[in-house]
């Protein structure tokens, strides 16, 4: 698992890749938060394109970053959810955040 983080204008994008479980979420969380707290971006994008596996630890990651961006006065977007990950987000009762799947979670 790895995360690559890019800042372009005021958009911070975190490209996640590999298997997203409790073990790897810890370090990924720290890397993203450090970058976000430094940059204070208007938008934080979590890009799931290359995530090959995800359990509910990934949902915790999303919810935690959502809270962080609220605190920083910015916005969180979720992009490129593979089908198997949409399934976990949806099955886990996240229908109410269904706009994730079309690109954004707004405050």
């Amino acid at each position, binding site marked *: 698992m790895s995360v690559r983080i890019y800042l372009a204008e005021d958009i911070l994008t975190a490209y996640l890749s590999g*298997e997203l*479980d*409790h*073990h790897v*979420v*810890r370090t990924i*969380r720290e890397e993203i938060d450090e970058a976000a707290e430094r940059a204070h971006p208007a938008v934080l994008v979590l890009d799931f394109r290359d995530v090959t*596996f*995800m*359990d*509910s*630890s990934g*949902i*915790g*990651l999303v*919810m*935690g970053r959502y809270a962080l961006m609220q605190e920083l006065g910015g916005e969180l977007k979720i992009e490129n959810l593979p089908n*198997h990950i949409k399934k*976990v987000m949806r*099955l*886990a*009762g996240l229908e109410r955040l269904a706009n994730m799947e079309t690109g954004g979670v707004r405050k």
Partner: protein
Amino acid sequence: MKPLNEMKLSFPSKSANEAFARTAVAAFVAALDPTVDELTDIKTAVSEAVTNAIVHGYRESIQTIYITAAIYPDNRVVIRIRDKGCGIEDIQKAMEPLYTTSPEGERAGLGFAVMQSLCDKVKVTSRPGKGTTVTLTRTLAGRNG
């Protein structure tokens, strides 16, 4: 019904073993020629239960997690994940979506909800101070289903 095949696995409750555990179970189930979706569902459910044993059961101390898996003639897969950790006081409450005792660890409280969505049956038995056993049952339709 007697299982056609079964296996036992044990390993220390290190978070690095979450990936090992779900991959090993998937390799065991692979003999049934499951679809990619079925295999992903099983891996995800196992990952939830193993993570719970590590995070909640053993509270990040390193002890042993026990897994058994069995395949039955009707394409039923039964997977048991067991810890000898702290146990659960109120199982019904623990299984409620969004309920978690570790919000500071950014647990979403959705582990059991995910297991229930992805399996046909999730059985939890637990004794406070003694440990917890989660039994996941999933019948595979397989490639002809």
